[in-house]
């Protein structure tokens, strides 16, 4: 019979080992994704990081031209979201989009980004 302390220790150890197993298995699964999808993922991470930096800056400096802040953050979030949509449409494992040629997906992506950035430039003020 385990004492309470030993049980606690065992649970903590199992949860950390759980987390490690999770991390390792995620890493190995992710390594299997094709390169073009990894590039898109990198772009998404970059966009989100830029958004976070802007939010932190706003927290420090204050939100005065609120439209500028919103324009900046929404342009990052928007382009990240559009990139995720592109990834979904280009990913060969998605059966729903197997009839969609990747050129069409990329063209849609470019068009939406164009509209997004035009509106952002108008909103920057």
């Amino acid at each position, binding site marked *: 019979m385990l004492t309470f302390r030993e049980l606690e220790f065992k649970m903590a150890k199992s*949860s950390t080992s*759980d*987390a490690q*197993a*999770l991390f390792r*298995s*995620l890493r190995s*699964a*992710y390594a299997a994704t094709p390169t073009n999808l990894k590039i898109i993922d990198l772009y998404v991470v970059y966009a989100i990081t830029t958004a976070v930096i802007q939010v932190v800056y706003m927290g420090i400096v204050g939100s005065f031209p*609120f*439209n500028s802040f*919103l*324009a900046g953050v*929404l342009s990052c*979030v*928007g382009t990240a*979201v*559009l990139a*995720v*949509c*592109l990834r*979904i*449409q280009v990913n060969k494992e*998605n059966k*729903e*989009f197997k009839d*969609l040629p990747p050129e069409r*997906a990329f063209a*849609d*992506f470019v*068009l*939406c980004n164009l*509209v*997004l950035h035009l*509106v*952002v430039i*108008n*909103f920057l003020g």
Partner: protein
Amino acid sequence: MGAKAAENGAKSSSSAPSPPPLKAFFRLKTKQQELLIRVASLALIYVLAFAVRLFSVLRYESMIHEFDPYFNYRTTLFLTRNGFYEFWNWFDSESWYPLGRIIGGTLYPGLMVTAALIYRLLRFLTFAVHIREVCVLTAPFFASNTTIVAYFFGKEIWDSGAGLVAAALIAICPGYISRSVAGSYDNEGVAIFALLFTFYLFVKAVNTGSLAWALASAFGYFYMVSAWGGYVFIINLIPLYVLVLLVTGRYSMRLYVAYNCMYILGMLLAMQIRFVGFQHVQSGEHMAAMGVFFLLQVFYFLDWVKYMLNDKQLFQSFLRITLTFAISVGALALGIGTASGYISPWTGRFYSLLDPTYAKDHIPIIASVSEHQPTAWSSFMFDFHILLFLFPAGLYFCFKRLSDATIFIVMYGLTSMYFAGVMVRLILVAAPAVCLISAIAISATVKNLTSLIRTKGKAPLAVSGKGSSSLKASAKASADQSLPFQHNCAIALLVGAFYLLSRYAIHCTWVTSEAYSSPSIVLAARGAHGGRVIFDDYREAYYWLRQNTPADAKVMSWWDYGYQITAMGNRTVIVDNNTWNNTHIATVGRAMSSYEPEAYEIMQSLDVDYVLVVFGGLTGYSSDDINKFLWMVRIGGGVFPVIKEPDYLVNGEYRVDKGAAPKMLNCLMYKLAYYRFGEMTTEYGKPTGYDRARGVEIGNKDIKLEYLEEAFTTSNWIIRIYKVKPPKNRW
């Protein structure tokens, strides 16, 4: 050789003259016939939707109706004369004296810009139209466009047959006609088109998963935001729909693409409208969309991790961690935002939709508008007719064949019907949903019935677009075990359906002609010998103001008439229909309900030169200021406790005859309305001073005015204008 070929050629060309149109029709293939019938039907429906809204133009003249459209007309006029930059930055000092109004930042520009663009286009094509004609006919034009959108939407949800029926139903649906007749130059005329268009584009985006359609729906949403404050319905219905799809397990990658693109781009575009401003990130009414946005990110992220891990055990632990983290962060953010007041709570206008009793107690201005009252069953029947019982039938069909699109239309129908029950005005928003769902019921029923008839091998009926390819198998099976009277029953039911639809058409035309085609600014009645009598008092009074008062005169009236006075009378007003400043309106209400000396003080403080009062006692016109007076008391009393409503009532009853309360008999409104009325004989056999609108003889016949003098009374005493005398000279 060559001669023979030429001869043959000549013979063949001479032996095939162009057949008459009917024969040519039957020579086309079935698909082409069907296309021709569909296009012809749509063209006729388009013209019908435009034509049925022209009653008032044909009966009276091409003029703008009601109150709000006059403001829209004035701003459109300003836009065409001074250009977009001046319009966008316009500060108007002619209304809400002495405060003024930032018109550029407090209106929805969609309608004005649309009308101005149509005007420019017509002028470019050298049609020398006046902007008023364009304004009067904008709403019917967009109603016709709505029928086309309804066709495509019905096609997306069910099939092209349902689309055609939907287009036909919405072309004449009285619920929609009421706010889109020719002359009703109001936001709803354009907004319903934008609403249906946005919904159609979004459903198309969810069905195809294409970024291009989602982008189009974002633009549709932008147009809707620029056109009407009711865009809040879209920004709450679509997240609710996404939530329902997630909960019922119908989520797919297409949903993610459609919603995210539409939300981000739509939100950014919507924030370009000054009136909307930052509400999409700061107002409680828009938080549902943001909440669902974050929920989608978390949901699909978890879905992706689950797919990658392929291991249930590990995923469960990961799920637990992420979910607790996400929920706690979300709840914390929402809590802090609401508590600190950064996220503003639901505004009164929309909160009163969720809690219908809220407005009566807290915001009398919203409660006083007649369009904001709860709907009676008779209004539903009046505005929808047979669609009312076809709506549940359509719901049944939608549930039988559930798909992403039918779930959407069911949700749209149910939510809009709930809101239509809360407020009469919102029957308009429910009309497209009711038409679409009823169209599904009609189309599916007629399709089944005609397939029953066709299985008997009769000559094929030329039905439009209702192919029975999928039903052929079941029809064959039923033909083997057909009931004896099945064929006759089907024909009887078809005749019944035809009868119902024709009654609907008759009802809609009658309703449009009788109830919804009155300009409100020109009144008509039947004279003693049956001839039509026109009362044009409103315009008479406004033109008197325009021509006989100094250019900087300020006019005090109740807020209903503000827009009309500025647009037609071209004079500065104290309060108008925008009702953005409750205290200012309460000041006017207080002035109208006080005794003359106190009212004179208030009028001096506001620099009032003229007072305008609407009075229906001579003609029996019941929408006059005496009938609206209690609302003036309530609104005034809401801000100034010195005005108490019981002072004006006798035993809780509102009276104007001898038994009326003394404060009522001597207040400014009573005096101005009934000045010199005590000498008038209005009806044969009744005493002088008989008020035909209230049906009593007035109590105070000998009215003397100390601080005002009568300036003008129109020919039927409907509008009375008084001049405020300057203060007496001091010794």
